[in-house]
Protein backbone atom coordinates (compact mmCIF):
# COMPACT_ATOMS: atom_id res chain seq x y z
CA UNK A 1 0.00 0.00 0.00
CA UNK A 2 1.57 3.30 -1.06
CA UNK A 3 1.40 6.54 0.91
CA UNK A 4 -1.65 7.79 -0.98
CA UNK A 5 -3.67 4.61 -0.37
CA UNK A 6 -2.74 4.76 3.31
CA UNK A 7 -3.93 8.35 3.59
CA UNK A 8 -7.05 7.55 1.60
CA UNK A 9 -8.21 4.66 3.76
CA UNK A 10 -7.20 6.35 7.02
CA UNK A 11 -8.94 9.62 6.31
CA UNK A 12 -11.86 8.74 4.05
CA UNK A 13 -14.49 8.61 6.78
CA UNK A 14 -13.22 11.74 8.53
CA UNK A 15 -13.34 13.74 5.31
CA UNK A 16 -16.70 12.26 4.39
CA UNK A 17 -18.19 13.20 7.77
CA UNK A 18 -17.13 16.83 7.39
CA UNK A 19 -18.31 16.97 3.76
CA UNK A 20 -21.67 15.46 4.66
CA UNK A 21 -22.19 17.78 7.61
CA UNK A 22 -21.34 20.73 5.41
CA UNK A 23 -23.37 19.79 2.35
CA UNK A 24 -26.22 17.95 4.02
CA UNK A 25 -26.41 15.63 1.06
CA UNK A 26 -24.72 12.22 0.75
CA UNK A 27 -24.15 12.43 -3.01
CA UNK A 28 -22.63 15.91 -2.80
CA UNK A 29 -20.47 14.76 0.09
CA UNK A 30 -19.13 11.84 -1.93
CA UNK A 31 -18.34 14.14 -4.85
CA UNK A 32 -16.49 16.52 -2.53
CA UNK A 33 -14.52 13.63 -0.99
CA UNK A 34 -13.57 12.44 -4.47
CA UNK A 35 -12.39 15.93 -5.41
CA UNK A 36 -10.41 16.29 -2.20
CA UNK A 37 -8.56 13.01 -2.68
CA UNK A 38 -8.03 13.79 -6.33
CA UNK A 39 -6.29 17.00 -5.25
CA UNK A 40 -4.19 15.00 -2.82
CA UNK A 41 -3.37 12.44 -5.51
CA UNK A 42 -2.30 15.16 -7.96
CA UNK A 43 -0.20 16.89 -5.33
CA UNK A 44 1.62 13.71 -4.39
CA UNK A 45 2.00 12.71 -8.07
CA UNK A 46 3.63 16.05 -8.82
CA UNK A 47 6.11 15.57 -5.99
CA UNK A 48 4.37 17.93 -3.58
CA UNK A 49 5.02 17.53 0.11
CA UNK A 50 2.35 17.68 2.79
CA UNK A 51 3.66 17.94 6.32
CA UNK A 52 0.35 17.47 8.10
CA UNK A 53 -1.92 15.49 5.75
CA UNK A 54 -4.83 15.43 8.22
CA UNK A 55 -4.97 19.20 8.53
CA UNK A 56 -4.38 19.60 4.80
CA UNK A 57 -7.29 17.31 3.98
CA UNK A 58 -9.66 19.10 6.34
CA UNK A 59 -8.60 22.46 4.98
CA UNK A 60 -9.17 21.40 1.36
CA UNK A 61 -12.50 19.78 2.28
CA UNK A 62 -13.73 22.88 4.06
CA UNK A 63 -12.69 25.12 1.18
CA UNK A 64 -14.32 22.90 -1.42
CA UNK A 65 -17.52 22.75 0.63
CA UNK A 66 -17.60 26.54 0.99
CA UNK A 67 -16.94 27.00 -2.73
CA UNK A 68 -19.74 24.59 -3.56
CA UNK A 69 -22.15 26.35 -1.24
CA UNK A 70 -21.27 29.74 -2.63
CA UNK A 71 -21.82 28.46 -6.17
CA UNK A 72 -25.17 27.01 -5.29
CA UNK A 73 -26.19 30.30 -3.65
CA UNK A 74 -28.58 28.36 -1.62
CA UNK A 75 -28.08 25.66 0.87
CA UNK A 76 -28.38 22.10 -0.18
CA UNK A 77 -31.60 20.37 0.57
CA UNK A 78 -31.60 18.82 3.98
CA UNK A 79 -31.17 15.11 3.92
CA UNK A 80 -33.36 14.82 6.93
CA UNK A 81 -33.82 11.27 7.99
CA UNK A 82 -37.08 9.46 7.66
CA UNK A 83 -38.78 8.72 10.93
CA UNK A 84 -38.50 4.97 10.69
CA UNK A 85 -34.71 5.16 10.95
CA UNK A 86 -34.85 6.39 14.52
CA UNK A 87 -36.96 4.13 16.60
CA UNK A 88 -35.14 5.07 19.74
CA UNK A 89 -35.95 8.76 19.62
CA UNK A 90 -39.31 10.31 20.19
CA UNK A 91 -41.13 12.33 17.54
CA UNK A 92 -40.67 15.39 19.69
CA UNK A 93 -36.92 14.97 19.71
CA UNK A 94 -36.88 14.46 15.97
CA UNK A 95 -38.75 17.70 15.46
CA UNK A 96 -36.34 19.53 17.73
CA UNK A 97 -33.44 18.05 15.84
CA UNK A 98 -34.89 19.05 12.51
CA UNK A 99 -35.37 22.60 13.75
CA UNK A 100 -31.76 22.70 14.88
CA UNK A 101 -30.57 21.27 11.56
CA UNK A 102 -32.56 23.92 9.72
CA UNK A 103 -30.96 26.64 11.83
CA UNK A 104 -27.53 25.12 11.17
CA UNK A 105 -28.05 25.16 7.44
CA UNK A 106 -29.07 28.79 7.60
CA UNK A 107 -25.70 29.75 9.03
CA UNK A 108 -23.08 31.35 6.83
CA UNK A 109 -20.85 28.61 5.30
CA UNK A 110 -17.82 29.87 7.25
CA UNK A 111 -19.79 29.72 10.50
CA UNK A 112 -21.03 26.25 9.66
CA UNK A 113 -17.44 25.14 9.08
CA UNK A 114 -16.60 26.13 12.65
CA UNK A 115 -19.61 24.25 14.03
CA UNK A 116 -18.85 21.16 11.95
CA UNK A 117 -15.23 21.06 13.10
CA UNK A 118 -16.35 21.75 16.66
CA UNK A 119 -18.79 18.85 16.50
CA UNK A 120 -15.95 16.62 15.33
CA UNK A 121 -14.30 17.23 18.69
CA UNK A 122 -11.42 19.26 17.28
CA UNK A 123 -9.29 21.37 19.57
CA UNK A 124 -9.30 25.13 19.06
CA UNK A 125 -5.86 24.82 17.46
CA UNK A 126 -7.10 22.29 14.93
CA UNK A 127 -10.20 24.36 14.19
CA UNK A 128 -7.98 27.37 13.64
CA UNK A 129 -5.68 25.49 11.25
CA UNK A 130 -8.48 23.94 9.21
CA UNK A 131 -10.78 26.95 9.03
CA UNK A 132 -8.30 29.79 8.89
CA UNK A 133 -9.82 31.55 11.92
CA UNK A 134 -7.25 33.01 14.30
CA UNK A 135 -6.52 30.73 17.24
CA UNK A 136 -7.26 33.51 19.73
CA UNK A 137 -10.66 34.09 18.12
CA UNK A 138 -11.91 30.49 18.00
CA UNK A 139 -13.57 30.52 21.44
CA UNK A 140 -15.15 33.88 20.76
CA UNK A 141 -16.38 32.73 17.34
CA UNK A 142 -17.91 29.51 18.70
CA UNK A 143 -19.58 31.43 21.51
CA UNK A 144 -20.97 33.97 19.01
CA UNK A 145 -22.28 31.27 16.66
CA UNK A 146 -23.93 29.39 19.52
CA UNK A 147 -25.61 32.59 20.66
CA UNK A 148 -26.77 33.19 17.10
CA UNK A 149 -28.15 29.65 16.89
CA UNK A 150 -29.87 30.08 20.23
CA UNK A 151 -31.60 33.22 18.97
CA UNK A 152 -32.57 31.53 15.71
CA UNK A 153 -33.99 28.53 17.53
CA UNK A 154 -35.96 30.74 19.85
CA UNK A 155 -37.36 32.41 16.77
CA UNK A 156 -38.09 29.14 15.00
CA UNK A 157 -39.69 27.40 17.88
CA UNK A 158 -40.57 29.04 21.14
CA UNK A 159 -41.68 25.72 22.58
CA UNK A 160 -38.10 24.57 22.50
CA UNK A 161 -37.37 26.67 25.56
Amino acid at each position, binding site marked *: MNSFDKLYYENYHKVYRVALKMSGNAQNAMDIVQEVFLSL*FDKLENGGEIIYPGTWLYKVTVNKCCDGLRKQMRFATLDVAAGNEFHEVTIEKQETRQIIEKALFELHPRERVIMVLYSEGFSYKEISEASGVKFQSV*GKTISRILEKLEKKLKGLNNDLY
Partner: protein
Amino acid sequence: MTCIKPELIQKYIDRETTSAESELVDAHLKHCEDCCRKVEARKQFSQLIIHSVNHLVKDHGSIPAFAPVKKVSGRFFVKRRIIYGLSAACVLLLIMFTVIRTRTREPWHVSIVNTIGPQVDANKPITKQDMIINIIDQDGNVTELKLE
Protein backbone atom coordinates in the same frame (compact mmCIF):
# COMPACT_ATOMS: atom_id res chain seq x y z
CA MET B 1 -16.40 40.95 41.06
CA THR B 2 -17.40 41.12 37.40
CA CYS B 3 -19.03 38.09 35.84
CA ILE B 4 -17.34 35.84 33.29
CA LYS B 5 -17.58 36.76 29.62
CA PRO B 6 -19.41 34.32 27.32
CA GLU B 7 -16.18 33.74 25.43
CA LEU B 8 -14.41 32.58 28.57
CA ILE B 9 -17.38 30.40 29.53
CA GLN B 10 -17.10 28.72 26.14
CA LYS B 11 -13.38 28.15 26.53
CA TYR B 12 -13.96 26.79 30.03
CA ILE B 13 -16.59 24.33 28.78
CA ASP B 14 -14.33 23.23 25.94
CA ARG B 15 -11.36 22.89 28.32
CA GLU B 16 -9.34 25.36 26.32
CA THR B 17 -8.61 27.75 29.19
CA THR B 18 -5.14 28.20 30.60
CA SER B 19 -4.57 27.08 34.19
CA ALA B 20 -4.76 30.71 35.36
CA GLU B 21 -8.07 31.22 33.53
CA SER B 22 -9.48 27.97 34.95
CA GLU B 23 -8.59 29.03 38.49
CA LEU B 24 -10.24 32.38 37.89
CA VAL B 25 -13.43 30.79 36.56
CA ASP B 26 -13.55 28.17 39.34
CA ALA B 27 -13.12 30.85 41.99
CA HIS B 28 -15.87 32.95 40.44
CA LEU B 29 -18.30 30.07 40.07
CA LYS B 30 -18.01 29.25 43.76
CA HIS B 31 -19.93 32.36 44.73
CA CYS B 32 -21.86 33.33 41.53
CA GLU B 33 -25.01 31.32 40.98
CA ASP B 34 -25.91 33.32 37.91
CA CYS B 35 -22.68 32.34 36.15
CA CYS B 36 -23.09 28.73 37.30
CA ARG B 37 -26.44 28.66 35.56
CA LYS B 38 -24.95 30.29 32.45
CA VAL B 39 -22.15 27.71 32.32
CA GLU B 40 -24.58 24.83 32.74
CA ALA B 41 -26.98 26.20 30.13
CA ARG B 42 -24.18 26.78 27.64
CA LYS B 43 -22.78 23.31 28.27
CA GLN B 44 -26.17 21.74 27.56
CA PHE B 45 -26.76 23.86 24.49
CA SER B 46 -23.29 23.05 23.11
CA GLN B 47 -23.97 19.34 23.58
CA LEU B 48 -27.36 19.67 21.89
CA ILE B 49 -25.81 21.35 18.87
CA ILE B 50 -22.94 18.83 18.69
CA HIS B 51 -25.41 15.93 18.80
CA SER B 52 -27.57 17.54 16.14
CA VAL B 53 -24.63 18.15 13.81
CA ASN B 54 -23.36 14.61 14.37
CA HIS B 55 -26.82 13.33 13.66
CA LEU B 56 -26.44 14.52 10.06
CA VAL B 57 -24.03 11.64 9.53
CA LYS B 58 -26.24 8.62 9.74
CA ASP B 59 -24.21 6.18 7.76
CA HIS B 60 -20.57 6.21 6.78
CA GLY B 61 -20.99 3.61 4.07
CA SER B 62 -18.13 1.60 2.69
CA ILE B 63 -15.01 3.19 1.31
CA PRO B 64 -15.17 3.13 -2.48
CA ALA B 65 -12.03 2.28 -4.40
CA PHE B 66 -10.23 5.41 -5.50
CA ALA B 67 -10.05 5.71 -9.25
CA PRO B 68 -8.11 8.80 -10.22
CA VAL B 69 -9.54 10.45 -13.28
CA LYS B 70 -6.71 11.42 -15.55
CA LYS B 71 -7.15 15.12 -15.61
CA VAL B 72 -6.22 16.94 -18.77
CA SER B 73 -3.13 18.89 -17.95
CA GLY B 74 -3.58 22.60 -17.41
CA ARG B 75 -0.63 23.15 -19.74
CA PHE B 76 -2.66 21.77 -22.60
CA PHE B 77 -5.23 24.49 -22.07
CA VAL B 78 -2.51 27.13 -21.87
CA LYS B 79 -0.95 25.88 -25.12
CA ARG B 80 -4.32 25.79 -26.81
CA ARG B 81 -5.02 29.31 -25.66
CA ILE B 82 -1.68 30.50 -27.04
CA ILE B 83 -2.37 28.81 -30.39
CA TYR B 84 -5.83 30.39 -30.59
CA GLY B 85 -4.41 33.78 -29.67
CA LEU B 86 -1.66 33.61 -32.25
CA SER B 87 -4.09 32.48 -34.94
CA ALA B 88 -6.41 35.36 -34.18
CA ALA B 89 -3.48 37.80 -34.27
CA CYS B 90 -2.37 36.42 -37.66
CA VAL B 91 -5.83 36.79 -39.14
CA LEU B 92 -6.07 40.33 -37.78
CA LEU B 93 -2.69 41.26 -39.23
CA LEU B 94 -3.68 39.78 -42.60
CA ILE B 95 -6.85 41.86 -42.66
CA MET B 96 -4.94 44.99 -41.65
CA PHE B 97 -2.31 44.49 -44.39
CA THR B 98 -5.01 43.92 -46.99
CA VAL B 99 -6.82 47.11 -46.01
CA ILE B 100 -3.63 49.18 -45.92
CA ARG B 101 -2.52 47.81 -49.28
CA THR B 102 -5.87 48.63 -50.85
CA ARG B 103 -5.75 52.17 -49.53
CA THR B 104 -2.16 52.82 -50.54
CA ARG B 105 -2.61 51.48 -54.09
CA GLU B 106 -1.00 53.48 -56.84
CA PRO B 107 -3.21 56.42 -57.92
CA TRP B 108 -4.80 56.45 -61.27
CA HIS B 109 -3.00 58.24 -63.98
CA VAL B 110 -5.18 61.17 -64.82
CA SER B 111 -4.35 63.78 -67.39
CA ILE B 112 -5.87 67.21 -67.05
CA VAL B 113 -5.97 69.33 -70.14
CA ASN B 114 -7.32 72.82 -69.81
CA THR B 115 -8.09 75.08 -72.64
CA ILE B 116 -9.68 78.48 -72.99
CA GLY B 117 -13.24 78.11 -74.12
CA PRO B 118 -14.28 78.92 -77.73
CA GLN B 119 -15.97 82.21 -76.76
CA VAL B 120 -13.02 84.39 -75.92
CA ASP B 121 -13.91 87.81 -74.64
CA ALA B 122 -10.99 90.06 -75.32
CA ASN B 123 -12.21 92.67 -72.84
CA LYS B 124 -11.88 90.27 -69.90
CA PRO B 125 -8.65 89.24 -68.20
CA ILE B 126 -7.59 85.66 -68.69
CA THR B 127 -8.72 84.71 -65.24
CA LYS B 128 -12.29 85.68 -66.13
CA GLN B 129 -12.39 83.71 -69.38
CA ASP B 130 -14.52 80.58 -69.76
CA MET B 131 -12.45 77.51 -69.41
CA ILE B 132 -12.84 73.86 -70.39
CA ILE B 133 -11.02 71.23 -68.43
CA ASN B 134 -10.71 67.76 -69.90
CA ILE B 135 -9.89 65.03 -67.42
CA ILE B 136 -8.56 61.95 -69.13
CA ASP B 137 -8.23 58.88 -66.93
CA GLN B 138 -5.89 55.97 -67.58
CA ASP B 139 -8.55 54.11 -69.54
CA GLY B 140 -8.84 57.00 -71.98
CA ASN B 141 -12.26 58.24 -70.84
CA VAL B 142 -12.58 61.98 -71.14
CA THR B 143 -14.62 64.02 -68.70
CA GLU B 144 -15.25 67.60 -69.74
CA LEU B 145 -15.74 70.29 -67.15
CA LYS B 146 -16.77 73.79 -68.10
CA LEU B 147 -15.81 76.61 -65.79
CA GLU B 148 -17.52 79.91 -66.37
